[in-house]
């Protein structure tokens, strides 16, 4: 058997074939995953006439930048973007804060009905958001915040999932650490801030990424709460655009490309954090 040298390593022919097959499948899959994005970009630079042709072409005659300038009057990109940022940053910050503290309480503090309360948290993790949306909507109307960003920011400040995730992490930290600190005169809050929180970096990152993705891409909640264009988040703004430009595909695709851009940049900058975060969330026990 002759071995094959490639990429500074040595493979048996069998290994090599397996690798090539893997690459072929993965490349084909990658193309399938990417195609819609490429198609979106290419359409966004075509003229309307070039869109209605069969067979479809990848590139138009020339690059039609006007599609991007045309949307500015209808698609208040900067405002929607700022709204999305506002809501996401607020929700992530508060969810991390409340989840970490509650996770600590559930894992370290002794108080009555602790297990019962935690069981309630666990039970609601399965409840679809659609079950709670109507009373929450009524509640928000009662506080007078419907149709403001507050209605998107207040309810998700607390998350059962986040609390669960943080508690699970704190349970893995050996108690000997905080007992030593306790002897040094640390209060429970001090133990939380000085000892446990600094160790929870990766769990916090996981929760932050999850929470950010969910909030940033949320369509259902703004659809229910927000009616004024000024308060639109990016997904709702795009959905509104879709209604009034239903057949102007190039302009619609230009808006879509722009709406994807921020989260795409964030992802490319922090790919490893994203990936690690997602992978961590799947690990139980």
């Amino acid at each position: 058997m002759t071995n094959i040298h490639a990429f500074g390593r040595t493979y048996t022919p069998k290994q090599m074939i397996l690798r090539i097959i893997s690459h072929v499948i993965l490349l084909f899959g990658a193309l399938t995953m990417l195609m819609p994005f490429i198609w979106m970009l290419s359409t966004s630079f075509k003229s309307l006439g070039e869109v209605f042709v069969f067979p479809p072409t990848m590139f138009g005659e020339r690059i039609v930048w006007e599609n991007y300038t045309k949307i500015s009057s209808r698609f208040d990109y900067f405002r929607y973007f700022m709204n999305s940022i506002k809501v996401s940053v607020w929700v992530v910050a508060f969810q991390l804060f409340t989840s970490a503290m509650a996770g600590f309480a559930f894992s370290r503090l002794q108080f009555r009905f602790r297990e019962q309360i935690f069981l309630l948290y666990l039970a609601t993790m399965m409840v679809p958001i659609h079950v709670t949306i109507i009373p929450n909507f009524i509640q928000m109307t009662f506080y007078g915040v419907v149709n403001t960003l507050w209605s998107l920011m207040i309810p998700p400040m607390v998350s059962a999932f986040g609390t669960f995730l943080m508690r699970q992490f704190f349970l893995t930290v050996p108690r000997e650490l905080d007992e030593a600190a306790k002897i040094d005169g640390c209060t429970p809050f001090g133990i939380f801030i000085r000892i446990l929180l600094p160790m929870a970096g990766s769990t916090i990152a996981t929760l932050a990424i999850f929470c950010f993705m969910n909030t940033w891409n949320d369509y259902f909640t703004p659809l229910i709460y927000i009616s004024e264009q000024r308060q639109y988040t990016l997904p709702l703004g795009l959905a509104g655009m879709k209604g009034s430009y239903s057949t102007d595909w190039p302009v619609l695709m230009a808006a879509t490309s722009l709406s994807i851009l921020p989260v795409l940049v964030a992802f490319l900058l922090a790919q490893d954090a994203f990936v690690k975060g997602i992978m961590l969330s799947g690990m139980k026990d």
Partner: protein
Amino acid sequence: MKRTKLTKALVACLAAAMAVSVAGCGGGGGQQSSAPAADNNAPAADNAPAADNNAPAADNKGGDVTISFMGWEASPLETDAVKNGISIFESENPGVKVSYTPSLSGAEYTAKLLSTVAGDSTPDVMFMQSTDYRMFASRGVLTEVTDKFSEEFSLDDFVDSARQIMEIDGHVFGIQSCIVTPVLYYNKDIFDAAGIPYPSASEAMQWEDFRQLCIKLTTDDVYGCYGQEVVSTSLNAFLQSNGAAMYTDDMNTCTVNSPEAIEVLNAIRDLRIVDNAAPDATTLENIGMSANQMLQTGRVAMLIDGSWALQELASIGFPVDMAPIPYFKTPTNIAQAHLHCISARSPHQDESWEFLKFLSGMNYQGALVKSGLWMPNRISMYEDAAVNEWFDPAVHGSYKQMLGYFKDAKVQVSALQKSSQCSDILTEETDKFFKDGQATEATVENLQTRINEVLERLASEG
């Protein structure tokens, strides 16, 4: 109104009560933990009314009044028109500002409006789809304008269809914006190429003539007509022209299960599947074009669409003209359009009424009529002198011979229905009929049964 607030408070408090009670038992010692929880709750609840009161107060600052105005964006052209109108109004009424919010359109608009009502943030003035008008009016959401209205306008000056929509048992809760009706558009080039005379603008075609015309116009590249299967536009006109009725006069019972209705549905479908003179029922979704683009690019020779399409068609610039839609036994046209209404909770009733009047005047309605988007809803606007003011030959083509067609149109009955669920059922079942080949008999039977179930439920709810 008071009880409504109470209801909301009840539900909100239910959630809050849960918080207090469970926090109470969760905290071991009990007292220690429930106290801060309760404290946190109280200010939250107190803040709500305070925040409500602030809103109008802020508006009054500096003597300026700002009216909030909500509508939808059906097309960018329409929003531009609204914004133009607003700037004219603002220059005519110093001290009054209008802040316009285009919201989502269609069924989502209903949802948005409902949520503003529930959230106590109803805009002062709003677009109201005719299909929702009765639902919102009956719930006390809209200001009754009957008295103000009769001082300035005469209901008798409004065309029949407009009057029937606006008036609910002698009460008026808003002014209809205009009327829109189905129109038969045709591409003159295709008629010229085929050597076929144009359809008459003054006299509608009988269905059989229309069918023969479609067959003659159909070639390998061109279909005769598109749009007769779009039920929201024209189905009711066809039904009425054949003596079939969707509802009884009191709108309490659906009566669509009749031989006349079956005849109409069969005829419309057969134009496509037997004569092959109409494109597929899902054409619009299939090609991702608008109906206007299909007519413009010569994929169809004729198009049945709402009269609003004229604004865009006239601006594209190709030889298009109009005729009445075909009929079965008697020529029939139907009309409806959205209304402009004032919120019952608006603190600026007078300013809002001024704005409502403006929206019905020459500077707003008139401008949109001139552009071809709307047709007038007042009889006086159809008199010769008035017509000369808005009629633009470059836009309106053969409309001069069709004035009676618009003026005498019957009301589109779906505008009088009691719940938008009825029109959703109509869409669903006719979808199954046109797109899935559901049998005609089953279609009308399902329609009648399902709509009557809804109506019965509504009646029992009172």
